[in-house]
């Protein structure tokens, strides 16, 4: 094990390297491209024995990764924003085919208007796609989640997205501990499943009539429900082996006696921890709930974590037009029937700053707001 300074992009690249990916396919896009270039450099330097398919588009990137996965190889791709939207057709298809592809997404705002800055709207647009979504709070978690992602994917046979925000995480150096390769090999042995195999010919994705289609979908969703358990067990196993516990579906901070909880995901979490410490030092009973797995949605875990609080404030770096923030909407739904005040806020879209200052202001605003006029209010306009 060694500690070094890595960007989120580099952390994702080291994760792919430690996972010994066999096939890599990507199409360059900002801000995900440094992760791509770093893995290609590992290959060029002979540090990684991986086939790189230099595709002509994001759409083909996931298609090639999918083909490689169907042929039994561990595969990885990286993208964000427009690239993710362009490959969306293949995103859904990959989940339907139950292929354990892992994709890193350097979350970036969607056009129009054009923006190259961070936001979680790209990942949120894929919430119904059938992929497991993990959100990372710092670069160490990017690396650790990459390794857990392959284990989760190969256990439940569903693809996993590892989300970290563009620039805030993808281009920012942090101290990251790189696990030992031998220990990773023990944690993550390759489970090879060849769906396309000349020794055992099968027809894949044949036309499913109404007598069959719905049952396939039931099983696909069942695998997602299985992931609710598996994400936790993989997280515990990783904690035992490597000493870092990312707490499964959700993480809680200072929630034991909290009266007011902030709920969010991604880069806001590391800042929110500082805010909680500060407010606690002033005697305020504030706590934090981090949604680490957004899909499958950890409704039961959230109900448990939030059952004693009087006020819940939710921060959403996304907007589902005409509905509100995705997390706000889903947390409200999960807590249906629970007697608690919930205020949710859209913030930080297209790279607008969300620092400790903004998080503190949101929490203050929420304290003063008895009942929101709409499902989500906009903060920081």
């Amino acid at each position: 094990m060694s500690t070094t300074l890595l960007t989120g992009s580099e952390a994702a690249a080291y994760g792919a390297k430690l996972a010994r990916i066999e096939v890599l396919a990507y199409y360059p896009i900002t801000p995900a491209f440094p992760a791509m270039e770093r893995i290609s450099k590992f290959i060029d330097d002979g540090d990684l024995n991986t086939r790189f398919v230099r595709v002509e588009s994001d759409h083909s990137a996931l298609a090639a990764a999918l083909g490689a996965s169907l042929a039994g190889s561990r595969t990885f791709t990286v993208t964000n924003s427009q690239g993710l939207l362009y490959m969306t057709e293949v995103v859904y298809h990959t989940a339907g085919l139950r292929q354990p592809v892992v994709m890193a997404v350097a979350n970036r705002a969607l056009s129009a208007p054009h923006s190259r800055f961070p936001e979680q709207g790209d990942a949120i647009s894929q919430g119904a796609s059938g992929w497991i979504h993990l959100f990372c709070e710092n670069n160490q978690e990017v690396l650790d989640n990459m390794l857990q992602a392959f284990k989760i994917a190969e256990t439940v046979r569903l693809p996993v997205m590892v989300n970290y925000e563009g620039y805030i995480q993808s281009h920012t150096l942090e101290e990251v501990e790189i696990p030992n390769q031998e220990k990773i090999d023990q944690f993550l042995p390759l489970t090879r499943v060849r769906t396309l195999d000349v020794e055992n010919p099968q027809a894949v994705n044949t036309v499913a009539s109404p007598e069959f289609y719905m049952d396939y979908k039931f099983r696909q969703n069942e695998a997602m429900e299985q992931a609710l358990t598996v994400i936790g067990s993989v997280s515990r196993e990783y904690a035992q082996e490597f000493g870092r516990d990312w707490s499964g579906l959700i993480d809680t901070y200072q929630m034991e006696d909290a009266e007011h909880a902030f709920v969010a995901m991604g880069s806001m979490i590391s800042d929110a921890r500082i805010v909680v410490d500060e407010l606690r030092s002033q005697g305020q009973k504030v706590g934090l709930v981090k949604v680490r797995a957004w899909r499958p949605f950890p409704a039961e875990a959230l109900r448990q974590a939030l059952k004693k609080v009087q006020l819940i404030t939710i921060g959403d770096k996304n907007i589902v037009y005409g509905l509100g923030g995705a997390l706000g909407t889903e947390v409200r739904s999960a807590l249906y029937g629970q007697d608690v005040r919930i205020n949710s806020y859209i913030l930080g879209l297209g790279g607008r700053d969300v620092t400790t200052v903004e998080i503190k202001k949101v929490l203050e605003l929420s304290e003063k707001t008895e009942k929101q006029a709409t499902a989500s209010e906009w903060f920081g306009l």
Partner: protein
Amino acid sequence: MALSIADLPKEELFGQGHAGCGGCGAAVAGRQAMKALGSRTIITIPASCMATMGGSNLKTTWQIPFYHTLFEIAPAVSSGIRAALDAQGIEDVNVVSWAGDAGTADIGFQALTGAAERNEHMMHVCYDNEMYMNTGGQTGSQTPMFAKTSNMSKGKMIKKKNMLAIMEAHEIDYVASASIAYPLDLIAKFKKAAEKPGFSYIHILAPCHRGWQIPAEKTIEFARLAVESGLFELYEVDEGKRTRTVEPIFIPVQDYLLPQGRFKNLTQEAIQGIQAGVNRHYGRGE
């Protein structure tokens, strides 16, 4: 030594119990190609008649690994399959993407040109029935000039895009046209393509009797007339060397065109123009 029908394997890897129409040109193409490719082949087929006729629910006619892909991704998927086989040290497997004219020349073109440019170790096959038959027969880039389709009742007034020339321009290992009326020529070309270390492209004229409005039992006959008239030239470009593999006998083009319902309204002027084009191509006098 020339190939003979007696040399062909008896094994049927595609076609027994497919769900295509009787007289389907695409199904004939699939059956012939599999005689050359053999059982150690992985085939990807995007949205098309060929994909849907190959299997439904728990049944399939394919005796090899077959994957019905999304419409525009088959060559990209096959690139990934080859990468995985290479990573696993599996060398003796043919990797094939097989699409209709839409999945090749139109919606599928981006992934195709990408895989060809990378000179992936695979082949792409276009079975060309010159219209979008799986959705009822609409016009596409491979629809020939003047042909009537379900969404252009007055006929298409633009020429067919020359996919073979486009693929030749990629300077890949092997490019060939083929016809289901010339099975030995077709099979020999698939065998050559399978031996290449890089990318091969085979473009098969595979009539669809429904779209072309010809009798179902005349599919092969019309495929032959297209070659005999010189309208569909059978040739190959093998590592840059261009060879015509079947010499046309130059029956009048109208003998091929006029019996087809889709060309029913062809004027004499149009026919003369098409004939003049054939004559020019082969350097024949008027």
